[in-house]
Structures are given as C-alpha cells and as structure tokens.
C-alpha cells in the first residue's frame, strides 16, 4: 500500500473510533448501556440491523462468489423479507410489551429458568465462537494480501472497536454502524464505477453485463430443486426464511438492535425497511463480482488469487511445474482477452449465430483454463496439505489492491475493517448483555446498584472482546472460516428458533417439555449434520421443526403421566 492509502486507512479508522467515543458520553445505567434508553429512530435501527448482519466477509466474499459461481447467491436472501414480516407480527410486540433487555428473558416468563438458561448458553457458545471467527476471516485475507502479521491484524481487527463498544455500549455501536455503512456504500459504489471505467474504452456497463450474462454469471434465479444445492430459489425462500427468522428473531446481536427503538412502530419500520432494501443491496454487491469477472476476461487473471500461497508453492519442489501451468494459464488468458473482444463485437452486431459461435469459443477456452487451474490447485495442495485452495475470498481484494488507484485501495481496506467492526461491536454488546442480564443479574447478583451493573457490563464487553481475539488467534488454522461461521450458526439457530415458536404459538406446551425437546432436537441436528444428508441451510428448518414436534410429543407424554399420578 502507498503512503496515501495508509493515510486514508488510518484517518477513516480514527474518525470512526473518535465518533464512537464521542457518542459514548452520559451512560449511567444498564438501560442506557444496553438499550440506549430505547430512543433510536427507525433509520438508525435499520442501519444498525444492516451493519450487524453485513460483516467484512459480506463485502469480500460476495463479489468473489459471483465471480466463481454467478449471482445465484442472492437467492439466499429471499427468505429474509418474509422473516421480517413474521418478526414484526409475532416477536416485536411481545418483546416490547414485556420490556425485556434480552430475547431470552421472555423464555423464563413463558416457561422456566432452565429453558431461559439453556437458550442463552446456546447463544453464548455460538455467538462467542463465531465472533472470533468473524475477526479471523478478514484478518487472514488482509494479512495474506498485504503481508501483514496475522496475529497483529487480529488484534487490530478485534481490538480497536473495543474502545468505543466498551465505553459507549449500544448507542455507540448503533451510531458508529450508521457512519460505517455510509463509508462502506460510498466505497463499494466507487469500486463498481472503477471496474467499468477500467474496462476497454468501447466496453460500457451494458456491454459488460451482456458478456457477463453470456458467460453464465448473471444466473440470479435458479429454479432446479436439489436438497444438497445451497443456492436455488427453494432453499433461498424456505431455508433462508428459517435462517433469517432465527437470526433476526432470536439472536441477541440483532434483537438488541431493534429493542433500542423508541417504539414498536420504529422497531417495525427498521425491520420492514431491511426487508425492502436487503435483497437489492446484495444484488448490487454480487453484480460487482460479475463485473470483476468481465474485467479479468479482458485482463489476465492470476491462476490463484491468494498470491502469498502461490509464492509459497513456487518455492517448493512443485515450483517449476506450477510456473509451467502459470505460463499456460497466461497464454489462455490472452486468448480469452482476444475472444471476449470478438464476442462483444458480435454482440454489437446482434447476429445470433455469430454471437453463439463466439460465446462457445470463449466458454471453451474458459473450460480449458479451468482445467489448468485445477491442476495448479492440486499442486498447491501437494506442496502444502493444509493450504486452503478456495480463493473466492481473495478475488475482490486482489482486484482492489492491484487495479484501483492510490487512496481508493486504502478506503477499500478501511471498509473491510469497518464492516468487521460493525458486526463484531454488536456481537460483543449482545454477548455482554446476555451474560449480565441472563446470568449475572438473574443468578449471581440480583440486587446490585445501577452503577455496579454498568461497571460489570463494561467489564464483560471487554472480556468477550479479549475472548473473541483469542478465538481468532486459534482459528487461523481452521480452513474455510466462512463456511465454519455459517455451519456453526445453522447448528444452533434452528433449535433456538423452535423454542421461541413453541413459546409464541403452542400455548399448551410447558417448560419441561420445551426444555427436553430443545435438548433432543440439538442432538438430532448434530446427527443430521454428521450424516451429511442435507445442505447446512436446511439444518435451521430441521432444528426448528424438531423442537415444535418433539415439544408436543413430550407435553402429551407429561399430560398422560400427570393423569396417571394421583393428585
């Protein structure tokens, strides 16, 4: 990175930290600290919800996903608007009416203490580990691309935000997320504009779309049904609905966001607006990836986007073979560059037969290049069996670092930090609120003063921050981290959602039956995952349905047992 990039990066991060600290003033009790005095307007709730969900990986991985697999990943978000509606109808009024700090408090009122504790512990395990992985995932990519030390990158990625999250609580989190999202959207828009600008002079946005579409990257809708396929319209609407319902309805990192709103109306409006804008936002981020794909048709792409791993392999005994493959790949890259120019010229004439012929020729070269790349990946794996040969997350940042002008590179790197901070800060705030409200206040020290609770809340924010950084340091060797976060979430979310749905809708089910059903469902979800019969997205639906069915069965069993026993 150039000096200009360093200045842009440092200035952006310092402004955010100072803004967060400035917004931290005047905390006097837990209601201030965890609920922001329930004073947020809907647009802050909206941006906070979006900032919590959109981690660094959203902005790094999604364009890479579109580059490799096309835009069908957007279907993953189709269930989200439907979930927003259900949460507005069923969850928000209950949480607001009972005036809870955490979603899990409600479960004690509806069932009993053990069900509340079980659910909050499941949340703490899942969120605590996944926050560590959320720190680590972008750190690995940045350290690899820019040659930074991974451990120090983890400390900066997860450590600096603790300053304002610890001192300012939820208000600092929400306001910094708002500013962060403004910077993020501006930066991503600039990156999109630059991709088109960097294409040859005769290729505009429309031509780039046409080429991308002909190469199969604009496959937004896939209607084929397959249980093991992650991204089709069915898994998107059904699996995505359960995932979004679990995440927004029962994960304290999100519930804590919309509970800060000043009324039910403001909470609902924040959620519904998220339902309106989320899908178009993801569409645009993926479109950026589809355009980067076109860019690398005109200009040579590396055989593997993780340059650090590539360099390592070059220095092993597989090095000469790899370099030979790189040469072949470069030649094919030049061939693709010539062929894509012919294709866009044909597209301009509109002659279908010529277009089809040029498209086929380009696709054929792309397949051949894919085979050469596959051989290279095998070499990388042979030279280093622990290497992650999935370079999806490196594609967009490789483009940023190598193709964008000075200053913009620094801004894009800052965006990775900001996106990370937004979701991690909300996670730390929710981990602290669950620990303090559901464990410390409920079971350890129910009669402390406001000042004591505030002090303990800040302390737990710090503890969870340090814990997450430690998890990140250990997670560096775990392999595909994005997948790890998604799978981790799906293993627990379904069960937690099931408990809440039983609480809302199955009024005759009591605490014992719900508790037993949750335990049994969690074990069965792990078994289904181990058997590998469905894609992880379906685990949310499996866990939820199991809790609903089993709680009815256990309740029936308990009723029969009660009838048999003498009064």
């Amino acid at each position, binding site marked *: 990175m150039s000096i200009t990039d360093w200045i842009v990066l440092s200035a952006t991060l310092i402004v955010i930290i100072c803004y967060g600290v400035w917004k931290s003033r005047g905390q006097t009790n837990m209601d201030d600290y965890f609920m922001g005095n*329930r004073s947020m307007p809907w647009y802050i709730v909206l941006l906070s919800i979006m900032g919590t969900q959109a981690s660094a990986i959203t902005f790094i991985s999604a364009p890479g996903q579109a580059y490799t697999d096309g835009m069908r990943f957007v279907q993953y978000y189709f269930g989200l*608007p439907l979930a927003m509606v259900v949460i507005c109808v069923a969850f928000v009024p209950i949480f607001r009416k009972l005036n809870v700090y955490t979603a899990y408090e409600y479960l004690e009122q509806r069932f009993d203490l053990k069900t509340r504790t079980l659910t909050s512990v499941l949340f703490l395990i899942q969120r605590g580990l996944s926050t560590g992985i959320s720190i680590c995932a972008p750190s690995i990519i940045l350290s690899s691309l820019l040659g930074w030390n991974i451990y120090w990158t983890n400390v900066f990625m997860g450590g600096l935000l603790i300053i304002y999250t610890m001192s300012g609580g939820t208000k600092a989190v929400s306001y910094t997320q708002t500013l962060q999202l403004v910077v993020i959207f501006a930066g991503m828009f600039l990156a999109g504009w630059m991709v088109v600008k960097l294409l040859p002079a005769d290729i505009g946005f429309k031509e780039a779309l046409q080429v991308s579409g002909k190469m199969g990257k604009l496959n937004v809708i896939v209607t084929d049904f397959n249980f093991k396929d992650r991204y089709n319209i069915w898994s998107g609407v059904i699996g995505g609905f359960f995932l979004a319902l679990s995440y927004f309805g029962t994960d304290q990192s999100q519930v804590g966001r919309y509970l800060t709103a000043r009324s039910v109306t403001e909470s609902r409006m924040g959620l519904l607006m998220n339902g309106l804008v989320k899908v178009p936002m993801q*569409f645009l981020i993926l479109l950026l990836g589809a355009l980067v794909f076109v860019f690398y048709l005109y200009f040579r792409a590396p055989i593997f986007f993780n340059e650090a791993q590539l360099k390592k392999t070059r220095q092993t005994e597989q090095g000469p073979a790899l370099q030979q493959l790189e040469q072949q790949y470069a030649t094919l890259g030049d061939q693709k560059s010539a062929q894509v120019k012919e294709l866009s010229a044909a597209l301009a004439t509109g002659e279908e037969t010529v277009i089809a012929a040029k498209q086929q020729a380009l696709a054929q070269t792309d397949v051949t290049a894919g085979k050469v790349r596959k051989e290279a990946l095998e070499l990388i794996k042979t030279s280093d069996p622990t290497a992650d040969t999935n370079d999806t997350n490196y594609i967009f940042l490789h483009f940023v670092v190598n193709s964008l002008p000075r200053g913009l590179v620094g801004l894009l790197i800052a965006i990775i930090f900001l996106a990370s901070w937004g979701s991690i800060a909300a996670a730390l705030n929710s981990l602290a609120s669950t620990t303090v409200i559901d464990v410390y206040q409920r079971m350890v020290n129910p009669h402390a003063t406001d000042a004591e609770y505030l002090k303990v809340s800040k302390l737990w924010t710090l503890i969870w921050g340090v814990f997450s950084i430690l998890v990140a340091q250990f997670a560096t060797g775990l392999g595909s981290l994005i997948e790890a976060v998604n799978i981790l979430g799906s293993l627990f979310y379904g069960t937690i959602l099931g408990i809440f749905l039983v609480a809302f809708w199955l009024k005759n089910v009591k605490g014992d039956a719900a508790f037993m059903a949750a335990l049994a469902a969690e074990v069965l979800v792990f078994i289904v995952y181990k058997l590998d019969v469905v894609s992880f997205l379906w685990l949310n639906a499996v866990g939820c349905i199991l809790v609903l069915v089993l709680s009815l069965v256990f309740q029936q069993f308990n009723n029969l047992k009660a009838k048999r026993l003498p009064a």
Partner: protein
Amino acid sequence: MTTKDTQHEKPPLFSKWRYWYLLVIAWLITQIILFYFFTKTFS
C-alpha cells in the same frame, strides 16, 4: 421508558400494518420476477 403498549400503534403512511407487510411481500415477488427476466435476458 417511552414504549407505548401497542399492538395497535398506527403505522406511518398506511392505515394498517398489514398493508406494510403486503408491500414487503409484493416487493419481494416483484424482485423475483424482475430477476427472472434479468437472468433470461442476459443468459
């Protein structure tokens, strides 16, 4: 505590919340249809 107890809080713009919910669902369906044609047009 500023929360109004309100299953019955009036929504902005519309007279009932259900119209907001319908708007969100209708927008989702519209997007899916638009994306379908987008896929068909450029493939």
